[in-house]
Each structure stands twice: as structure tokens, then as C-alpha cells.
């Protein structure tokens, strides 16, 4: 079964149809997606700015104790609402370059965040390596958000 075929099947699903045919569901899910985006931005930024020495003077490892919870909650909400949005129009997304770019940058951003950024900060490490990972993390999430917005324009 081809990817396009799968997309067509998802589009025809009851969940996809319900979201697509409702006036309020898509905008409501979209708005929740945006609210969680703000929270993710806040959690990533409060840590990143501190690592780079241009934010709070409190040690990033201390900030991490609070920030990682908001990061996790925001990402869970983003993934759930994102899946719902995609389920409502998978055939449209199938052909969109911006969606493809977003998914690739999402995988990179998740990997950099959970395999490098978070563990390094949790252990209280610092130095050029940690700062580079921080910049990469910020850039990756920026790319995800930009490509996400671009889906609507392409």
C-alpha cells in the first residue's frame, strides 16, 4: 500500500471526517497547538538563554527542574494536537514540501533536545560543546515552527 493510499484512508476515517466537517474543531485544535508552542518556546528559551549567559544567572541545571516539566507537557500537547490536525487533511499534507521539512526538522529537534540538550543541562555541564548544542536546539525548534506555519502558505 502506497503512502498516498494510506493518506487517503486516514482522510476517510471517522476522526478525520469529524474534524474536517466541524466548524469549530479545526480552529480549536489549531489554537491549542499554538498555546503549547508558546509554552515550549518559554521552556526552551529560559534554559537556552541561561546557558548562553544572556538570561537568568541561576544555573541551568536548577532551572531544568521546573522547565523540563513544561517542555514535556508542551510537547505532548503539540504532538497530540498536531496528529489531530494532520488526520483531518493528510492528502493535502502528502504533497506539501513544508510538511516534509517540518517532519524532518521535528525528528532532528526531538533527538537534539532529548539526547543531547536535556541530558547535558541536567548534569550541569557547560562549555563550548553545550553552547553549540543549545544553539542547535533553538535553531531546530525555530525550523519546526517556521515550516509548520509555511504549510498553510504552500
Amino acid at each position: 500500500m502506497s503512502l498516498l493510499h494510506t493518506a487517503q484512508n486516514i482522510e476517510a476515517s471517522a476522526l478525520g471526517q469529524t474534524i474536517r466537517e466541524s466548524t469549530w474543531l479545526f480552529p480549536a485544535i489549531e489554537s491549542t497547538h499554538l498555546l503549547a508552542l508558546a509554552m515550549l518556546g518559554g521552556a526552551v528559551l529560559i534554559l537556552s538563554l541561561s546557558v548562553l549567559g544572556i538570561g537568568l544567572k541561576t544555573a541551568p541545571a536548577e532551572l531544568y527542574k521546573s522547565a523540563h516539566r513544561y517542555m514535556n507537557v508542551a510537547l505532548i500537547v503539540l504532538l497530540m494536537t498536531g496528529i489531530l490536525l494532520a488526520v483531518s487533511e493528510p492528502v493535502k499534507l502528502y504533497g506539501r514540501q513544508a510538511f516534509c521539512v517540518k517532519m524532518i526538522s521535528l525528528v532532528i529537534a526531538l533527538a537534539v533536545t532529548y539526547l543531547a540538550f536535556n541530558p547535558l543541562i541536567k548534569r550541569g555541564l557547560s562549555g563550548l560543546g553545550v553552547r553549540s548544542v543549545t544553539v542547535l536546539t533553538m535553531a531546530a525548534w525555530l525550523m519546526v515552527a517556521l515550516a509548520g506555519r509555511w504549510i498553510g502558505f504552500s
Partner: protein
Amino acid sequence: MLEGLVNKLAQTPWSIGLHESLYMYAITESTHVICIMLFVGTIAMVDLRLLGISYTNVPVSQMLSRMLPWTIVGFVLLLITGAMLFLAIPIRTYHSLWFRLKCLMILIAAVNIAVFTFKVERDKATWDLGRVPRNSKICAVISLSAWASVIVFGRLIAYNWFDCDSINSPAMAGITGCPLDP
């Protein structure tokens, strides 16, 4: 008077140019959305501190002095891109129910900031790392709710449910400033 100004604005080459541009409108709107992360993101983290539920090991004074400059950067970028988005579609946005609600929420958030700055935070030296006072928590809740509403109402401007051509009650005509056809 305001409506006349908006109508004039719509005829300017700047407005037409932005509206018809291939990439400029999309770039402006994307920048506007990205800056939400910077602006509302930093505000949310400060508010969570002011609620006393997170970052309690960071002094309130440091939270305000080291985070708010970034909030201001976000605000300036949002204001510039927001003004450009209004300029691109002035008449429809001016009559938009959601745009009007968004402006109302920004006003409420602004009054809340003024109350916090001139009354609530004045004695913050006494609770910098101690128990957060009740009025600070109230300000934080108002701030979080107001900015969340601003995001939601802002997103809804894109939907045409209450555009002038579908307004048919005097009350809605009053709120949106749309003409009511007999």
C-alpha cells in the same frame, strides 16, 4: 473617523503591495507566529514564578530583570509584524470581531502590567525568595489568561464566520462596526 482612516490606509501602495506580495505577507505572518514563542513564552515562565509554583529558587527580581528584556524584544517584533499584517488587510481586520476581542485582551493585559509594575512589585524585595503575595498571583493568572486569549483570538481572525457579509443582527453590527443591510 477611525473607519475613514482605515479606508484611506487600504488605498495606500504599501497596503496593496503587502496584500498582493507573493512572499512578504507569508514572511511577516510567520515572523509574527515565531515571536509568540519569545513573547508569550518568556511571559509564561515569569508568571509561573509569580504564581510561586515554579522556578522558586530564582529571585523574583532576577526573573523580572533578566527575562523581561527578551519579552520586550518579542513585543517590539510582534508590534511591527502585527502592524504590517493589519496594513495588508486593513478594512476586514478593522471590522473583525476576533481582532476587536484581541485588542480588548491586549488592553486588559496592559492594565494588568501597569498594576503589577506600579503597585504589586514595589515591595518585591521583601518577598524576592519568600512566599509570593496573593496580589502577585492574581496578576499572574490575569496575565496568563489574557495572553492565551490574545493567541486564540489572533488565530481566529483568519476565519470568516463573522465577516461583514454574514452579519445579520444589530448587536453584532454594533460590535463589529459593520453596516446592517435591511
